[in-house]
């Protein structure tokens, strides 16, 4: 799906573009599972003491030899950068991408470029022990280039929330911070369990997760975002195998989702946007637009990183507010509707 040449396709000849984009839209690119062999041609890192290596198998099945101990890490994805901070390993992070913006301190790290096309020179100059990549964002080309330079790269590939949590633990192990990894994972799992207790029995709310409105783009059922929605007590009305399906507005109008979910850390933009949508006759057919039933959650939901659990909790609270209210000792809520001040989510 994230082929290197994606952005090179947006070229002069408007004719080529739709044709090639059609191929991409209908046939996701497959990351070759057996792509590269272990990076055995490792150069000697420094003159005197012999380097010890550890062989691990990353989440795409590649065998990687990582020098031990790991003291210099480069991250090529914002989700990986967040995980490193969550593991407490930020002092070993020597470089990250231009888009690594969470936590804010990450922005002060040495930048190596974009996730799709990082600068190999800068990476090499940083002399990392390992470069962290992830299948859903980085490209095979980058991995091959790093191999050619003799720089080991470790790839993660979490497909759902459980795998995101497991991936963080595994990363902790690989980077020599097993205890931190275990602690993080336990905490995340605990929060997910608490969430399941609170809302697991409630009927899920039917939602539409809106990535883009013109044209209308949502998420596929096999994405980690869809899984995150399920954990939050919601179900995406879009049942598509594509990762980012362009959705027919008619279909949505027919299915009538209860709530429209947006990922936007700055809620004002979305509020403006929703006012705009409400003026369009076609969108007004949606009850959710007319009644202003939308939920705006943190953009963390878009990243397969530990913070996604926070976004899940946020969404769960908005969709099932009654499960989060501290029940006063004797009273119970009757069947009144509860309006959350931040988001108008009426049941």
């Amino acid at each position, binding site marked *: 799906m994230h082929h290197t040449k994606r*952005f090179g396709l*947006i*070229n*002069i000849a*408007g*004719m080529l*573009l*739709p*044709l090639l*984009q*059609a191929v991409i*839209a*209908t046939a996701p690119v497959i990351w070759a599972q057996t792509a590269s062999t272990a990076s055995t041609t490792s150069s000697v890192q420094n003159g005197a003491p012999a380097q010890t290596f550890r062989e691990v198998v990353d989440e795409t099945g590649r065998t990687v030899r990582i020098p031990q101990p790991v003291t210099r890490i480069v991250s090529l994805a914002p989700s990986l950068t967040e995980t490193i901070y969550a593991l407490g390993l930020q002092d070993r992070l020597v470089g990250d991408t231009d*888009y690594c913006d969470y936590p804010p301190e990450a922005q002060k790290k040495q930048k190596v470029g*974009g*996730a*799709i*096309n990082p600068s190999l020179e800068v990476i090499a100059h940083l002399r990392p022990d390992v470069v962290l990549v992830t299948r859903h964002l980085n490209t095979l080309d980058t991995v091959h280039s790093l191999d050619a330079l003799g720089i080991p790269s470790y790839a993660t590939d979490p497909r759902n929330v459980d795998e995101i949590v497991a991936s963080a633990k595994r990363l902790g192990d690989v980077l020599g911070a097993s205890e931190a990894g275990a602690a993080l994972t336990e905490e995340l799992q605990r929060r997910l369990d608490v969430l399941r207790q609170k809302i697991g029995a409630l009927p899920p709310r039917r939602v539409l997760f809106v*990535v*883009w*409105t*013109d*044209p*209308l*783009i949502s998420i596929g059922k096999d994405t980690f975002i869809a899984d995150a929605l399920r954990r939050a007590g919601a179900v995406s009305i*879009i*049942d*598509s195998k*594509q990762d*980012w*399906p*362009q*959705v*027919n*507005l*008619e*279909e949505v*109008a*027919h299915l009538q989702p209860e709530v429209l979910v947006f*990922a936007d850390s700055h809620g004002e*933009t979305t509020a*403006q946007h929703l*006012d*705009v949508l*409400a*003026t*369009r*006759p*076609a*969108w*007004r*057919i949606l009850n959710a637009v007319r009644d202003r039933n939308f939920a705006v959650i943190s*953009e963390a939901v*878009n990243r397969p990183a530990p913070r996604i659990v926070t976004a899940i909790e946020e969404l769960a609270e908005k969709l099932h507010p009654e499960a989060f209210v501290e029940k006063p000792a004797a009273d119970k809520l009757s069947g009144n509707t509860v309006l959350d001040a931040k988001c108008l989510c009426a049941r």
Partner: protein
Amino acid sequence: MRPLTIQRLFLQCAALAGILFVVVIIALKAGAVEVSLFALGRDLIRVIVHHGSEIKSDYGLIVMNIRLPRILLGIFVGASLAVAGTGFQALLRNPLADPYVLGVSNGAALGAILALLVSPHLALLPAVADLLTPLGAFLGATATIAAVYFLGRREGQIDSTTLLLGGVITGSFLAAIIMFLMTSESGSNLRGMAYWLMGNLSTSLQPSVYWILWLGFLLGAGAIYTTASDLNLLLSGEKEAMHLGVDLPRVRLVVYIAASLLTGLAVSVSGSIGYVGLLVPHVMRQIFGSDHRVLLPTAAFGGAIAVVIADTIGRIVVPPAELPVGAMTALAGAPLFIYLLRRRMA
């Protein structure tokens, strides 16, 4: 000797209009939601005759507010692109010309992207904010038209070769800027823009925009049609046309501006839908001949039919998702182009 008569032209257009009507009916029926056309027709008549309020039924709303506007938009875009393509092919004396060759679509795309980037920072009324993207696209198209015009002049008049060169260069330059802007965004911002650029009829528009589009089409296509006889002569050669009384500078200017405006309007609302402006004129030429008095109206119908069919297929082939109409026209257009090419050479 069978010269063109107004009766023959009318019959040919009527036939195509009939085909378009059938296609529209099929498109109205096809889609994610089941529609009973009979019931819909009955409701429509009731609404029109009694000036009643909106149609109550579930499917009725969907059809009237989502599907029908989309089909109408498809007709507009298809007709505009086909007429613009015919005009450019005559103007540039080049059968490979399409409406995008002079860079107008890239200018529109850049305008749309800039509007998208700017709009969160402006405090606007919602209805106005919604118009910002098509407006930005149209302004971008207009600026490009003007720039290419000035680049494309020689000794004060439009010259076909210079125009083509100027247009191609401007187009590449704008494409480079677009690429730069898009690689400096991230995440979902990028993806949305890419889908839009691919060519999409699913943008739902404010009602006022539809009126502007149709007015623009009438003006633009009408202007080009007044030069139809001149364009016929132009195909024999520019010098010959001049000696036969064609006011070449005026014809060039009218066709250039009208065809570019039609393209700009179409791209402003639907992105770059490819192959329609290139191939529909060729197909119509095979069937109806090169006389522009016939070619222009039949190309308009042909373009409308092609786009509505492509969009309908895109809507029904991978439910609940849909394939952008630009992808469908490319998938169908490329093999058709090869076929036509081989026929010419055979």
